[in-house]
Structures are given as C-alpha cells and as structure tokens.
C-alpha cells in the first residue's frame, strides 16, 4: 500500500509537537502556487482543500494555511487526523465504515476502507454518470479528494529527512552527523551508491545476512530511494516552482522539476528555501520559518495580487455586505412600521456601507482575476446583488420611505446567500472556460445583461410591495409607486435588450451565427418580450394598472427561469453554466412567487368587489 510505504519512510521525522501556533503563517499564506489554472496564494489552495475535505472554512482558532502546512510538512500526523467529512449513511455502509459522532474520518481510515473496496469503486466508476446514485457520486468524490490529499502530503517527500543514514554516506555527502539527509541530497551520490550496491551484490548476491552493517545500510537506502521514487515521481499537484525554461509559463511541483529535468539555478535556490522551510516546520524553528516563508513569498508573479487575495479571504467583504444588507432590510422594515426617521437613516447607512463593501469586493475580485466581474453563475449572482443594492439606494434617495431599503436589502441579501450554492467546487475565484475568457464581451454583454436582471428584480420586488399595499390602499395612493415600477422596467428593458443584442454579436464571432434558439438566448429574449409586452400594453392602455403590476411581479419568475432555470435543461451551447444544484431552490422560489401573486391578486379583486358591493 502506497501510503504505508511513505509512512515507513517518514515516520521517524514526524513533527515533535502538536502546537504550531508560534509559527507565523503571514508570509507562508502568500507563497504563490499554480493551482487549477491560476497562480494563487498558498492560503487560497489551503482554504479550497480544507473546505472540500471538511466542509468548513477553517479550523477553530487556526487558519487553513496552518492546517495545510501540517499536511505538507508533517504528513504522518495529518494522515491520522480526522478531517474528512462523510455525512452520507449510504457511503458509510458502502465502505463498511463505523458511524462516528462527528461524521469525520482520517485519511488513514478512509484509505484502508477504500483499498478494501477497490472492486466496488471500479464498478461505481464504470457506471454511466446518469446511472450513478448520490452515494456513488459521493464515494467517487471522496476517492478523488483523497488522491489529491495524498499528493499534497507527499509533495515534499523528496525534501523530507530520511532515517538511519550510514555515517559513510554522510561523509560522502559532506554533512554533519546530526544534519538531515533527504532523498534529494542522496540523488547527488546516487551513481556512487548504485555502483557500491552493484559490487555488494556481485560479491554476496542476495544473501543479506552476510552483508555488513554498512552494506545493509546501502541496500536499505537504495531500496528506500526506489520506493519513494516509484510512489511519488508522478506527484505534480503542488506547483510552486516556476519553470525557467518552459515558455508557456508552466510551473512545476518539486518532483516534476526532477522528473522533467527542468532544474536551473533559480529552481535550485527555491528547492533550498523549501528544504529549509520543511526543516523549520519539523524543528519548530520560528525564526527560520519566518525567513524562509518570506523568501518564498517574494518570488515573482503579481505579489500585490497575492496579498490582495489573502486579504480578500481574511476580510470576507461579501460576508460583511450580506450582514449589512440583512440589517438594512430589518431596520427599514422597523422604520416603516414605527415611522422612525432615525432608524430609517440607520437602515440607509447599513445599505450604503454594505454596497461599499460589495463594490470593494467586486473591484478586488476583478483585480485578482484580471477580468470583468461576471463570468460564472456565482459571479452573476453577486453582481446582480450589487446592482440591486445600487438601485435600492437610488430609489430611496428619491423617495425616503424605506421601500427601497427593504426590497433591495432583501434581494441583495437573498442573492448573496444563494450565490454560495453556485460557488464552483469551493473556489469562487476560478478560471473561466476558454469560450468565456473574452474580456471585452464579459465587460459589455454580460455586464449589460446582468444589470438588466438586477433592474428587473428590483422592478419585480417593487411590484410585490404594490400588490401588498393594494390590498388595503386605493390605486390613487399608489400611483407614484406604479410610476417607479414603470421607470425601473424601462431601465431593465434597455439593459436586457442591449445585452441580448451584444450577446448575438459575440455568438456570431464565437460560433459563427447571431442567433441559434439556444435555451439561454431564448431566456434572454423572453425577458425582453415580457417587458416590451407589459410596457406597450401599459402605454397603449390595453393592460390595466393592476394587470401591469401583476405582470411585473411575475417578472421575477421569468428572470430566474431565464437566468438559472435554463442551466438545468442541460442542453445548448451555454454549457458552461449547467448545474443541478439549484433545481429545488428554483422550484420553491417559482412556486412561492406564483402563490404570492395569485393570492394577493385574488385578495385585491375580492376586496374591490366587496367595496363596490358596499
């Protein structure tokens, strides 16, 4: 078993203590890594891995980076700790694992369970994706996650100290008796060791009992080197060494540098830093740790962006915005009921501050990713949320009655909360698929169309307020509100129409046709047609005020179906956005909205009839 082999090699050098809090991870967090197509700080890789494994953002009282340093430099301890969250009873049953109170298991436990169920795993992997059960998919996810974890644990195995090094070997290497000797150090004299072993075998064949202590030590060392090489030479996940030769900007893992012969004076210097960093971790040398992590974080490639990304994750500005939006809508609601101007001002302040953090978060994301803010469903959610909050502030500016604060606080906070559902595989700063990676169109078409979505949702929510108020107020008192719905609808129509046309031009450039009746295109057109129908009907007098408002309230369903719903159909060219995560949420949303609109409409008509009868 691969894990046991590595364990045997590295166990004597497991870290000397549990507590690594005295090590300063500030610079370690900023060390650049090429991970999943993008250069990101070590902290981001740590957060992504920890979230995938444990379902949490960080350990209580410790950072994800500190946890990840343990995985990289103290793999024996990391492998024994219970981080892996397995919540499905079916998975536990499939792998014959005992239930645990916390629902977490160690790598060692899971590795053993998976190894003893290899035929089952093969069977599950061979299944067509649509035939796989939820438990099948969870088992496969666990399998791939563990493979990644194992690769990270063994990333630096070539720089980790080996036990029982013969004094003569130390002498050949020119190292002191107490100095650490690694696989990488031994590579330097591998030919000499190989020749020595060859001579031993020629003289004594494989009668190990006849070998002297030194000869046994040489044989054991060569065996361990071969074992380590066989286990880890394909290890390529932790790409921390920029190639000095590859013109495509490739980065390599330490093992890959050796395997591909990509070494250079620059990589030699980086190896030395990593070697010392590993030593500092194992020997708890805080000063050496600080010096080496500082040196490694100073390696090239947009240092400011790496710092910004670490700061972005630490501050979590979108989390702050979410809290402030919720606060704004609650205060706005209280202010409206109690008619308290001071609370209204506080609500406005909360929404404004929330929008400020939101804007800062969007700018930071753009600076980190070097592209416009909308490329994935997650990003479109947080962008639409921002547009909604800006609209709310603008509405409240014009009429200071709390309406804008309540509805946009609600929309913005709901969208931000829903965005986490679309966070692609725990990495919200992911790289886009090639077809989307066109900055001009992202900045024009996508920004335009999502601004249209935002305006549409604000108009729809205003229409909701109208319907609620209409149950007890006459239409004449709500004329101003209806006017505002009309104006916001015009803004929404403008952006969705321009956005849809720009999308056609982009499609013409990318796919060679302006329009292809793709579900996403049909969805965008549906919003445009819905708005045109309602606005023309209203202007021409064919639709009553109440009919117009009911239509506008239903716009939220149309927008959500066009925006999120079409991604559930799993057909069409816009395959980058397909997800099955939101199906239930969307169904609940549409049903709730439909029920709300029907109930309030019936209530309004019934009350009107009663009033007329009276």
């Amino acid at each position, binding site marked *: 078993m691969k894990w046991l082999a590595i364990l045997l090699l590295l166990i004597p050098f497991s870290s000397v203590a549990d507590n690594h809090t005295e090590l300063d991870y500030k610079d370690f967090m900023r060390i650049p890594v090429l991970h999943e197509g993008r250069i990101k700080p070590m902290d981001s890789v740590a957060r992504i891995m920890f979230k995938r494994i444990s379902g949490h953002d960080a350990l209580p009282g410790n950072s994800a980076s500190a946890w990840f340093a343990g995985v990289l430099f103290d793999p024996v301890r990391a492998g024994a700790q219970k981080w892996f969250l397995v919540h499905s009873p079916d998975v536990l049953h499939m792998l014959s694992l005992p239930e645990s109170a916390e629902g977490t298991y160690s790598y060692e436990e899971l590795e053993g369970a998976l190894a003893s169920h290899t035929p089952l795993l093969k069977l599950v992997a061979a299944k067509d994706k649509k035939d796989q059960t939820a438990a099948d998919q969870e088992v496969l996810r666990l399998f791939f996650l563990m493979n990644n974890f194992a690769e990270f644990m063994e990333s630096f195995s070539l720089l980790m100290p080996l036990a029982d090094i013969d004094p003569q070997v130390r002498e050949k290497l020119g190292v002191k008796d107490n100095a650490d000797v690694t696989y990488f150090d031994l590579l*330097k004299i591998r030919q*000499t060791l190989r020749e020595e072993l060859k001579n031993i075998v020629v003289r004594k064949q494989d009668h190990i009992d006849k070998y002297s202590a030194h000869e046994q030590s040489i044989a054991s060392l060569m065996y361990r080197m071969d074992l380590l090489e066989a286990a880890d030479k394909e290890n390529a996940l932790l790409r921390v060494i920029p190639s000095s*030769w590859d013109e495509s900007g490739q980065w390599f893992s330490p093992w890959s540098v050796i395997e591909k*012969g990509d070494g250079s004076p620059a990589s030699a210097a980086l190896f030395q830093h990593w070697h010392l960093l590993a030593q500092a971790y194992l020997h708890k040398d805080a000063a050496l740790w600080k010096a080496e992590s500082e040196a490694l974080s100073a390696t090239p*490639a947009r240092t400011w962006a790496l710092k910004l990304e670490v700061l972005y994750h630490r501050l979590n500005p979108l989390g702050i915005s979410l809290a402030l939006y919720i606060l704004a809508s609650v205060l706005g609601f209280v202010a409206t009921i109690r008619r308290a101007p001071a609370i209204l001002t506080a609500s406005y302040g909360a929404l*404004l501050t929330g929008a400020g953090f939101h*804007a800062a978060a*969007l700018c930071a994301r753009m600076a980190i990713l070097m592209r416009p803010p909308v490329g994935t469903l997650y990003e479109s959610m947080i962008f639409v949320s921002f547009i909604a909050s800006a609209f709310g502030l603008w509405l409240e500016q014009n009429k200071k009655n709390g309406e804008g604060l309540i509805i946009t606080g609600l929309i913005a906070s709901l969208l931000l909360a829903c965005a986490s559902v679309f966070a692609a595989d725990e990495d919200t700063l992911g790289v886009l698929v090639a077809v989307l990676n066109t900055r001009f169109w992202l*900045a024009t078409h996508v*920004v335009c169309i999502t601004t249209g979505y935002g305006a549409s949702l604000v108009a729809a929510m205003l229409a909701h307020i109208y319907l609620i108020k209409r149950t007890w107020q006459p239409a004449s008192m709500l004329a101003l509100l209806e006017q505002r719905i009309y104006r916001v609808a015009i803004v929404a129509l403008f952006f969705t129409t321009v956005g849809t046309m720009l999308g056609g031009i982009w499609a013409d450039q990318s796919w060679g046709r302006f329009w292809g009746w793709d579900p996403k295109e049909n969805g965008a057109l549906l919003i445009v047609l819905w708005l045109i129908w309602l606005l023309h009907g209203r202007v021409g007098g064919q639709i009553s005020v109440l009919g117009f408002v009911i239509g506008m309230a239903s716009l939220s369903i149309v927008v959500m179906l066009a925006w999120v719903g079409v991604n559930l159909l799993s057909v069409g060219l816009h395959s980058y956005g397909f997800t099955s995560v939101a199906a239930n949420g969307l169904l609940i949303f549409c049903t709730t909205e439909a029920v709300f609109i029907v109930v309030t409409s019936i209530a309004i008509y019934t009350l009107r009839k009663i009033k007329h009868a009276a």
Partner: protein
Amino acid sequence: MRRNVILLFVAAVLLTSFWMVFQETPQTTVQMQEAPDFSWQGADASHHRLSELGAKPVVLHFWASWCAPCREEFPALIVAARRNKNIIFLTVSGDEDGARAEAFIHQYAGQELPDNLLVAVDSTHALAFDMFQTVQYPETILLDSAHHLRRKFPGPVDWKGKDVQDYLNQLR
C-alpha cells in the same frame, strides 16, 4: 452627497470592469536569467570563471564517463564544437575521478581537443547538482553571449540536427 457616493460605487465597479478589457493577461512566462559567474577546475587542475570567457555564447554540457547516452552523444558534440568555433563548449564532467574524465575525452576527441572545447571536473557535483540542478546526465544548457540562460536540453542532444544548429547560429 449620498447620490454621489452611490454613483461612486457603481462607477468604481464599472470602470474597473472596463479597465480590465485593456489589461494584458497576467504573464507567468520565463524571465531571462543570467547564469551565475561560476568557477570550475579544469582537467589540468587550473581554475577558471565563466566571466573569463568573455562575450561568447557558451554550451554548458553536463556528462559523466559512466553514462551510456553521454558516451553516445559525445563524438557529435565534438564535431559541433569544431563547426562552431565562436561558441565555447564547456563540458562539465560528473566523474568523481578527473583522470577518468580526461581519458574519456581523449578517447573520443583524438589527441587534440578543439580550442573552444573546455573540460571542467565537477567531482563534488557542486556545479551540476547544487548550482544548475542537473540530476540526470547528459544535460545541456545554452548561454548567449551575455551569458543569459536561453535553453535547456534534458537528455541527449541531436547535435547534427537542424533545430540545435539553428539555435547555435542564433546564439552567435
């Protein structure tokens, strides 16, 4: 004032978005590195430095007499050295015994080595392993006349091939 703040937020996001359109993709491409001014010991125990070679391109070739691909490659390397007189071919031997390296060179080069082919003895692997991180022999690194690291060939090189010759011509 409040309206201005709202506009400021929206403008910040939209302007940053459009600014991104005109930004170049973050590059992680290779930055040309200068070779360290290393020193070496010749087969005759004389000491030299890279800077002493002047503004000439250098072919830095790591080899060892026990390495089979090196033995196969070496005759063609010598021919390439004879053909490219303006390029220094600095061959770094990883043999622990300098005499073995010298014997090997003369075996392949005949009695006389080309003037532009130098032999360095790197018995401690300080040059190959510690400085250039050469783990497997043979390996070749091309330096331009300013001694910048330009290209690396892990493994044997086809010295008769057009690719290498074209590159050597560019180095001149």
